């Protein structure tokens, strides 16, 4: 896997500092997933244990560590977070500290968990966001990428989340031509309404050419790299590595996208991981083109003149 992510040792590679430690991510399920999506950018599967689960203890310790650093939001990803047997406790613990977002494929959710999370959410001052990944608006678009029957299963998960009033954000990697976007999104929204999701929340992500996605389409061309020239006048807050780090069982990495890259581990403590990172990877180019693809819409702030720090 690392072979697809060559480190380009070039002094012209632009460095990005952790300008503001606003988001702390957790690779809470490692690379373990019940699905094996073709476009999974870190090639997760039921057998890929190159990254393992994080324990409740480890998460608690990192949450405490994040307080003096003034971290704002906590994000949980994998793999499939709900394969981690302590996931419900982890989210409940996090809601004591701040807002929590969990990225799930919604195929393994249990009522008992959702009831406990709904109670914790009601008792917390902070938002608990569910983000569900799905591809397109039908089994025909979703299942060839995510696996036979996964569309129906994810839909059942979404309906369950809606029943508990979590208003999940449905995240779809763009697997259609951009010109078709309005139609695709319209049909998808209609479908969700028919399933009982009265006010669906959608977030479209660009396709990342990494991991299993390399086999499906193509990897990054060498020309698809960020140069120092390109960074001039660019709003760096559009890049996750400008305001986030991710905890994995191998240490604290630069961003959720590059955990497998040989240079991604920046330290063992959150404080250690507060150092600049060279944007030498093809995935960095996608971030550059598409902006803050990993954050929630509510954490957005537009570019432009007013976006400059005052």
């Amino acid at each position, binding site marked *: 896997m690392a072979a697809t992510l060559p480190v380009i040792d070039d002094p012209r590679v632009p460095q990005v500092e952790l300008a503001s430690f606003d988001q702390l991510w957790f690779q809470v399920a490692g690379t373990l997933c019940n699905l094996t999506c073709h476009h999974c950018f870190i090639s997760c599967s039921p057998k890929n244990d190159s990254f393992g689960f994080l324990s409740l203890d480890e998460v608690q310790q990192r949450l405490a560590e994040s307080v003096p650093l003034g971290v704002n939001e906590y994000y949980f990803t994998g793999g499939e977070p709900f394969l981690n047997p302590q996931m419900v406790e982890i989210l409940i613990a996090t809601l004591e500290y701040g807002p929590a977002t969990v990225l799930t494929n919604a195929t393994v959710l249990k009522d008992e968990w959702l009831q406990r999370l709904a109670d914790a959410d009601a008792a917390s001052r902070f938002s608990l*966001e569910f983000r569900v990944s799905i591809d397109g608006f039908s089994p025909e678009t979703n299942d060839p990428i995510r696996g036979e029957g996964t569309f129906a299963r994810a839909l059942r998960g979404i309906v369950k989340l809606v029943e508990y009033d979590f208003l999940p954000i449905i995240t779809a990697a763009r697997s259609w031509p951009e010109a078709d976007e309005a139609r695709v999104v319209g049909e998808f929204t209609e479908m969700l309404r028919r399933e009982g999701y009265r006010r669906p929340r959608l977030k479209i992500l660009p396709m990342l050419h990494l991991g299993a996605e390399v086999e499906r389409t193509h990897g990054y061309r060498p020309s698809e790299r960020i140069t120092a020239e390109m960074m001039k006048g660019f709003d760096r807050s559009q890049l996750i590595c400008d305001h986030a780090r991710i905890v994995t069982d191998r240490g604290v990495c630069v961003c959720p996208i590059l955990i497998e890259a040989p240079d991604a581990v920046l330290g063992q403590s959150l404080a250690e991981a507060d150092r600049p990172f060279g944007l030498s990877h093809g995935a960095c180019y996608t971030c550059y083109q598409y902006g803050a693809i990993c954050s929630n819409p509510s954490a957005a702030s537009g570019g432009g003149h*007013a976006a400059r720090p005052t």
Partner: protein
Amino acid sequence: MTAAPTRLACFGGIYSNYLALEAALADVRRRGVDAVYCLGDLGAFGPHPDRVFPLLADHDVVCVQGNYDDSVGNELDDCQCGYVDPQDNHFAQISYDYTLAHTSAEHRAYLRQLPAEIRLEIDSRRVLLCHGSPRRTNEFVWESTASDHFLERLCREADADVVLATHTGIKWQRQLAEGRQFVNVGVLGRPENDGRRNVWYTLVEFGGDQVQVEFVPVEYDFARLAREMADEGLPAEFQETIRTGWWTTCLEILPVKERRRGAF
């Protein structure tokens, strides 16, 4: 002898709602305050953007520049609200194009020169008035997605004990460690997505051990505002918000807790 407390009236987001502004200023006058501040976004959403400016001048309202004011003042292409949803952006653009086209050159010049922040020292407390957050004019700081330690860091980095902000359209406040405080003063321009038609401003009183914050509801002639919006050809969706108290557009930016409270 203790000095009389200092009382400020603060509001954000007028969004061209000159009727609510009039009502709020009348209420402020009745109560008596030491100063009145607007934390930005004078235009947007409502009709006749030019009508708010004389009211602000007559009542010595001191203004901070919001993202909208920066955009209109400098005739930029969009409002810089930073919405991420295509539908939200569609409505934001209608509102922006109308506001820009109907703001006079004189008022645009006024908007252009507004400061991005105002700093006060009251009762040995450092007070920062800004639009979105101390660090970004258009940053959304929502109640349900702001941890205490994050707000404390924002205050610390801004050298402020009390931060007064707006931008999100929904008021809230948080007491922080070391006597610090973060207050979103709400907006006059449109109701809070709670099914009530009134809007809000905020009284901040300095003097005692604590900074006292009181959110004040403002009733105004919303039916007239909605009628004038219709006459100006502004979207039916905007009028509906004014008439019902529920947001109908720009909803995707809301975190789940705030979204759940609304109707759409």
